């Protein structure tokens, strides 16, 4: 304990003594007010009391005043300014203002030194301990100004801190919990993928194996999540949302692996390598003093750092923190400031943020530690897209742009290209402090990241742009442009440094683009309002492999291997015909799964392949050999399944036939009763009551002819 603290302890002893004095006074009063002589109730001297006070008046003893009573309501605020007598009144006012928020302050005591200067701490007594506790919680670490940060403690805590044992007792290490092989699903002999489904309007969740010919349920659970399911980016964990926080599930039987307590979580975001997890709650639990944003270590479940979100004043844009591709850095933009943090220290990189006036948005390259950000136009200063390298903050490339209304950045998944979609205007007008743009046209500024000095190419499109998507592996991109009914889908490719126009599909009903994760194939989709039209295109020669539709489809998802596509009608958007359908990448329907209250279907992601590029090439070369093997296997599994089905049906049929036989016997037994009820007439078979039948001639209307007969 430093001298300062011991001094404080002395001062507090002083206060205790004052209290003692008061108590003595009180005793005196009682004596004076005593009533005359009382009968003698005393026990004889040799009496031995065998009843302890605890037994006799245990309930009263509990309320017996203790020496420390009242001290729970006292707090010590350290770190307040040291002032002379002349300014003490002002100080008291300030302190009072801060601390009277938490409850009624009964006494304030400012210890002073010999010069009557305050010692820089104060004792405050509240009317009840709860207020004191609240005050400690809320103001510990309170910054009065630059020099003065309060450290606030309960007076009763001093004893606790005094009695801290000097010997460090190492915490017992948590036993290591073996969660088994979290990547077991990658070892599936048939390479089937898994997917999660929420249905019955959110009441049921399940994970299925996309096996052939029918999917296999792996785990089904009622109320697994309260809102949605989220797979981690490499597919290791499945996250479920709950009132109290978030849970991660994984391993072979989807056991719970980790819990993160953060009440009412609204959004989550995994770092790309799954090391960290960011959770956001607009209204965290006040009792636990939680903040809106918490970053967790996924493997240990420990809270790494928490942030406040000013979500009341600023619209929440998720993800608030953007991660570098290798989990090394994460960044957040707040009002023209870009703060980049480092892991695992979770401190600000180089202890300072990057201030860029007019910065509007930023994004990380998906492959390198490069940040791209853009700055809006300001009077005569043009808009600017800048690429910087992290951690050096070296500017790699900057590009000035004029007449810019808005910019959107699209990275190609391999990080080979960055496309900045620039909305440009011909005229602009300021209306009520908001800029109105007219005569909009669109530019794509393509940054060639892998080339020296990062050259930039530009493509201009006059029409309104609905969607843009890079081929994840490759150098093509697709654009949906135009207004209904003149919607077109155009494809461009980068060849030899330049951009070339490849193909245009005109007059289509699409609003979404879904590239296969392996490139080459793309699904053009008209979701929601466009009634769910789907077109499967092979972009190597732009053949339309299939045209189909899933009426009112709200979602389209590629499986992580690019073999299957799923389309779904979610209960969240549309109340009828909920369910999901599975297609091959060529647009052949495999299965339709109508499902009541189907909400969400997500494929389990796979980590990047560990195969070298040569190996992949080799496999592609020998594809014919492999495909023959697989075809045999498919056929075998099919014939096995159909054999099983035939046997199953046979059994079902036999069961039903024997049931019917039993019923027929019962029916025959009851014949006399039936005859009795129907006056002895046998009606068991249609023709068993022959005398009832009557021949009748029935006319059939064959055709009608109208003829005018001459008079």
């Amino acid at each position, binding site marked *: 304990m430093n001298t300062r603290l011991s001094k404080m302890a002395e001062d507090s002893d002083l206060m205790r003594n004052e209290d003692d004095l008061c108590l003595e006074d009180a005793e005196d009063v009682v004596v004076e007010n005593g009533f005359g002589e009382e009968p003698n109730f005393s026990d004889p001297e040799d009496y031995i009391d065998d009843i302890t006070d605890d037994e006799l008046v245990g309930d009263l003893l509990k309320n017996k005043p203790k020496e420390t009573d009242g001290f729970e309501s006292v707090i010590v605020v350290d770190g307040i300014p040291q002032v002379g007598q002349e300014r003490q009144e002002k100080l008291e006012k300030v302190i009072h203002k801060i601390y009277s928020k938490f409850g009624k302050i009964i006494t304030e005591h400012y210890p002073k030194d010999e010069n009557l200067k305050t010692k820089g701490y104060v004792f405050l007594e509240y009317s009840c301990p709860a207020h004191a506790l609240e005050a400690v919680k809320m103001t510990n670490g309170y910054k009065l100004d630059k020099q003065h940060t309060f450290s606030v403690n309960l007076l009763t805590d001093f004893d606790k801190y005094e009695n801290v044992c000097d010997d460090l007792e190492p915490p017992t290490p948590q036993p290591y919990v073996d969660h088994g092989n979290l990547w077991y699903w990658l070892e599936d002999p048939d390479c089937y993928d898994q997917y999660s489904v929420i249905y019955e309007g959110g009441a049921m969740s399940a994970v299925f194996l996309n096996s052939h010919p029918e999917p296999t349920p792996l785990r089904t659970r009622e109320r697994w999540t309260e809102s949605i399911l989220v797979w981690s980016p490499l597919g290791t964990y499945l996250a479920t949302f709950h009132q109290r926080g978030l849970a991660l599930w994984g391993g072979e039987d989807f056991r719970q692996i980790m819990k993160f307590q953060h009440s009412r979580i609204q959004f989550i975001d995994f770092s790309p390598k799954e090391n960290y997890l960011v959770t956001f709650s607009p209204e965290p639990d006040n009792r636990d003093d939680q903040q809106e944003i918490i970053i967790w270590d996924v493997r240990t479940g420990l809270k790494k750092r928490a942030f406040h979100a000013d979500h009341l004043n600023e619209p929440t844009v998720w993800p608030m923190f953007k991660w570098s591709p290798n989990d090394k850095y994460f960044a957040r933009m707040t009002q023209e400031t870009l703060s980049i943090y480092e892991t695992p220290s979770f401190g600000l990189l180089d202890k300072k943020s990057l201030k860029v006036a007019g910065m509007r948005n930023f994004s990380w390259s998906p492959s390198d530690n490069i940040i791209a950000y853009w700055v809006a136009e300001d009077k005569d200063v043009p808009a600017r897209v800048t690429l910087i390298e992290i951690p050096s903050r070296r500017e790699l490339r900057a590009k000035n742009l004029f007449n810019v209304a808005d910019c959107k950045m699209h990275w190609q998944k391999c990080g080979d290209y960055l496309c900045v979609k620039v909305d440009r205007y011909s005229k602009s007008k300021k209306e009520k402090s908001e800029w109105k743009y007219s005569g909009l046209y669109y530019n794509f500024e393509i940054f060639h990241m892998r080339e020296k000095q990062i050259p930039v190419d530009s493509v201009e499109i006059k029409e309104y742009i609905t969607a843009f998507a890079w081929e994840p592996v490759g150098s093509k991109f697709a654009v949906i442009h135009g207004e209904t009914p003149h919607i077109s889908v155009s494809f461009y490719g980068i060849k030899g440094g330049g951009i070339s126009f490849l193909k245009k599909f005109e007059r289509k009903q699409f609003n979404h683009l879904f590239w296969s994760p392996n490139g080459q194939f793309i699904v053009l989709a008209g979701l929601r309002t466009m009634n769910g039209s789907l077109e499967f295109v092979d972009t190597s020669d732009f053949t339309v492999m299939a045209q189909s539709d899933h009426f009112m489809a709200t979602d389209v998802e590629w499986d992580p291997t690019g073999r299957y596509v799923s389309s779904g009608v979610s209960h969240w958007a549309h109340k*009828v*015909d909920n369910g999901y359908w599975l297609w091959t990448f060529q647009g052949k329907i495999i299965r339709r799964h109508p499902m009541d209250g189907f909400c969400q279907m997500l494929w389990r992601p796979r980590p990047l392949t560990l195969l070298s590029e040569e190996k992949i090439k080799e496999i592609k070369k020998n594809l014919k050999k492999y495909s023959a093997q697989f075809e045999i296997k498919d056929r075998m599994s099919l014939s096995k399944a159909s054999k099983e089905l035939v046997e199953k049906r046979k059994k079902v049929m036999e069961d039903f036939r024997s049931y019917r036989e039993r019923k027929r016997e019962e029916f025959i037994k009851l014949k006399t009763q039936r005859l009795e009820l129907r006056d002895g007439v046998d009606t068991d078979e249609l023709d068993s009551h022959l005398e*009832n039948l009557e021949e009748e001639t029935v006319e059939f*209307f064959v055709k009608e002819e109208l003829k005018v007969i001459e008079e």
Partner: protein
Amino acid sequence: MKPLLLHGHERAITQIKYNREGDLLFSCAKDHTPNVWFSLNGERLGTFNGHNGAVWGIDVNWDSTRVITGAADNTCRIWDLETGTEITTISTENAVRSCGFSYSGKQIMYTTDKSMGFESSVYVFDLEAGKQLLGEDSLMKAQSSGNKITSAIWGPLDEYIITGHENGDLVKWDVLTGNQIQRVQEHKGTINDLQHYKDQSMFITASKDKTAKLFDTATFEHLKTYKTERPVNSAAISPIRDHVVLGGGQEAMDVTTTSARAGKFDARFFHLVFEDEFGRVKDHFGPINSVAFHPDGKSYSSGGEDGYARVHVFDPLFN
């Protein structure tokens, strides 16, 4: 197979039924006039005039002499089939939802809706008593507390009545005592229709929960389930093959938000034992409210929200 189009109703058809021999087809609708048709050529034999409200249910006795109808005008009426004249009217407290003759034809039952302080109830009358039938003269009356009866049929041999309820319950009532003998809940939604197999040893339910289910009549054992993506309004079992036909469709409020090609208003054929759908008949412009197999199994009829009843004769090859 070209269907016969029976156009005699101005509003949605609520129920259709064949007589025992199958030469006559009865239909009732939300207009006030039930019809009777020759099932062979679709010619209308006559109408039953008198109701002042939507007619919800119709039945004919085994020897085709009497017809019973129940309507929303709070009456249940018994008609002479040969002349079409009304024999008697039973005034009820509420709209009549379903009605039927017992196996012997000597007793009738009807069920009423729940409203205005009256519980949904099932009533049984003896036709042989000879006197004017009044609501309070019922042989048996049983209340279904809080849970509306939406469909009802007689069990075999005049012993009990089976009712289907709003919440998916199936209840068996003793005709003599009015006690519930058995109660099961296999459906999650309103049971719209109940129909017997020809020997009454099994019956099929049609429910708003998008399924039809096959039950054993005596034990209420659930035997089979036929699943669709639409509410099922009616289901019938073929008397000669292992087939069932389901009629139903999107509710009117959801029609505009579904695909025209999604098979909304088809009559759907399922295999009785394997529960697989194997065929559809596209015909009506609206949901199908009632289906019925001809007793000889060679044709079936459907009545729809569009006001038409259609008689479909299966191809000879199929028979």
